[in-house]
């Protein structure tokens, strides 16, 4: 059963349309990430599911019930905000119990439920503190606890890790993953950080200007992007793009001429392709550095900048096709200014047409 279903939802602010006839299903128990750049409509979409933004047209269903006109409190959702929104004048206990007290749950019932949630999130020692006395990670756990105590059908997260430092972000990501594994609850998670999306989500919905670009598992999006936008947005460092030209098509793929006159055979699934200009996309880890005269080199260039990350080395190579990034394992012994050739793993190359769609 779908836990959340959006049927052709749109959102308009006056004449400006920010979400365009969007349809999406979220399976029960899944972790779905809404991923995209700033202004793509991911937070707006989340807020429409929550009921904090009115849906201009279309329907939103949660557990097969049409909640389009329902107030947020009746939708069976709980939300963790980017700023956590912990009530500063209440203790941790009161923050977590707030929804229960509004609902008229007895004091004993509130105490019991708060204790269960506090035990689950290791907040027992913090119950009498106020939010100002908590660290960022503790506040985040309290915000999750406040959501958890409502026993919702769907958890909504609006960039909950963006206010944390890098190390804490990694730690909280693991905690969120563990929470999802323990609860098997449906979670919808908004982020602009693809690492969060790739590591946490079962399903990623990539949004671009209010429209879904692609929906799929993290590896599907990474290995088989359906368009240039997804290919460039997913993956860090991002995919390299070269202007190229299809000069012939064979059974096993397309013959693509690269800048610098080399031609490669790219295995492309599907129907035969017409000759013409295309864009060749290749991830940095699918380019290799060779000698400048090496027979396997499809392009030549000069090393510009070298970034040593410890476990990998990023080499920026200036070529006739522009600056390309090569990612090598470990510590590569390369020097800026050296002439190199670039080898291409054609099995992992992508072709994009003039409209940006993957060929």
């Amino acid at each position, binding site marked *: 059963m779908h836990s959340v279903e959006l049927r052709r939802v749109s959102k308009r602010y006056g004449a400006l349309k920010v979400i365009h006839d969007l349809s999406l299903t979220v399976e029960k128990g899944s972790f779905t990430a809404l991923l995209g750049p700033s202004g793509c409509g991911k937070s707006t979409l989340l807020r429409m599911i*929550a*009921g*904090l933004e009115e849906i201009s047209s279309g329907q939103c269903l949660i557990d097969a019930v049409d909640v389009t006109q329902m*107030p*947020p*409190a009746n939708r069976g*959702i*709980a*939300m963790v*905000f*980017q*700023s956590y*929104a912990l*009530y*500063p*004048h*209440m203790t941790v206990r009161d923050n977590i119990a*707030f*929804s229960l007290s*509004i*609902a008229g749950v007895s004091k004993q019932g509130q105490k019991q439920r708060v204790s269960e949630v506090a035990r689950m999130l290791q907040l027992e020692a913090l119950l009498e503190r106020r939010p100002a006395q908590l660290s960022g990670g503790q506040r985040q756990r309290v915000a999750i606890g*406040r959501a958890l105590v*409502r026993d919702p059908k769907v958890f909504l997260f609006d960039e909950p890790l963006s206010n944390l430092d890098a190390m804490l972000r990694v730690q909280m990501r693991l905690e969120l993953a563990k929470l999802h594994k323990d609860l098997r609850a449906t979670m919808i998670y908004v982020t602009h950080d693809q690492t969060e999306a790739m590591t946490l989500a079962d399903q990623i919905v990539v949004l671009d200007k209010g429209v879904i670009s692609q929906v799929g598992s993290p590896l599907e999006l990474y290995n088989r992007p359906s368009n240039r936008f997804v290919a460039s947005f997913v993956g860090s460092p991002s995919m390299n793009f070269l202007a190229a030209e299809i000069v012939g098509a064979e059974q096993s793929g397309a013959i693509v001429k690269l800048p610098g006159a080399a031609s490669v055979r790219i295995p492309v699934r599907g129907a035969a392709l017409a000759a013409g200009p295309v864009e060749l996309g290749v991830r940095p880890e699918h380019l290799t550095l060779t000698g400048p005269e090496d027979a396997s080199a499809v392009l030549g260039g000069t090393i510009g900048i070298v970034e040593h990350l410890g476990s990998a080395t990023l080499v920026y190579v200036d070529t006739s096709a522009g600056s390309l990034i090569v990612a090598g394992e470990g510590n590569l012994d390369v020097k800026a200014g050296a002439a190199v050739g670039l080898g291409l793993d054609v099995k992992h190359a992508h072709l994009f047409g003039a409209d940006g769609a993957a060929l």
Partner: protein
Amino acid sequence: MSAPEMAAAHRNIRRLDRIGLALTLATVLGAILWAFPLYWAVVTTLKPEAEVVQAGVVLWPRHFTLDNYFHVLFDTKIGLWYINSLITSGAVTLIVVVMAAGAGYAISQLAFPGRQALWWMILASFMVPIQALIVNHFILMSQFHLINTLAGVVGPQLIAPVTVIIYKQFFDSVPKDFREAAVIDGANNFHLLFRIYLPMNWGVTTALGIITFIGAWNLFLWPFLAVTSQEEMNVSVGITQVFDAFGVKYARDLATAILAAMPVAIVYLIFQRRVTQAIMLSAGIKG
């Protein structure tokens, strides 16, 4: 630092010390000049009347007496006037704070037809001094048969646009996330106002409450017009009833004034930080 530089620095420090000393002396002199009339008033109340009207300046009573205070406390209705002041000031404070918080919340957070027009009306009401409305208030209270009643004293004092404006400004500054989180938790507007917005602005509420109380306690013009019966007077009006048929009794009159002002002075001394905050808030808006 070289020796000449150090010498110059020392000269500057000595000059600053002399300037500081001069400023301190001027400030102390100003404080003495300001406080002297208060001192003189208190000291006068501790003298018998005969000593008060004697020629010359007597800075300390030759014959110390509390008779003036005893007369005011036991031979006048000041006890009743205190109670009336407490009731009317307390009622004004409670009703103004609750109503202003509600109005400020509605204008800040709710969308309803005429909201903007209502807001402009409240802002525009600043331009109308209360004194210009006195006659209208009297006619209205008279039509409601509230003249010479405590309710009649309280009624017109409930018009408090400053309080509404201050609450509206503070509620505007509450981040939207808090409201949305509470709405998701099932809170209605009543919960939002009394469990989120007001508690988050408790300091402002305390400050406004104190300054409203002080203003209501000290108010003279409207209570003087609205009440003629001594039983319904508050203390600021009641003290005008303490007079002698045989001339002015300075010591007794001053004792009456000091007793009338003392409760508010004590409230101010305890809550002076909050009072200052409230004055700054309203001055910021009027400025």
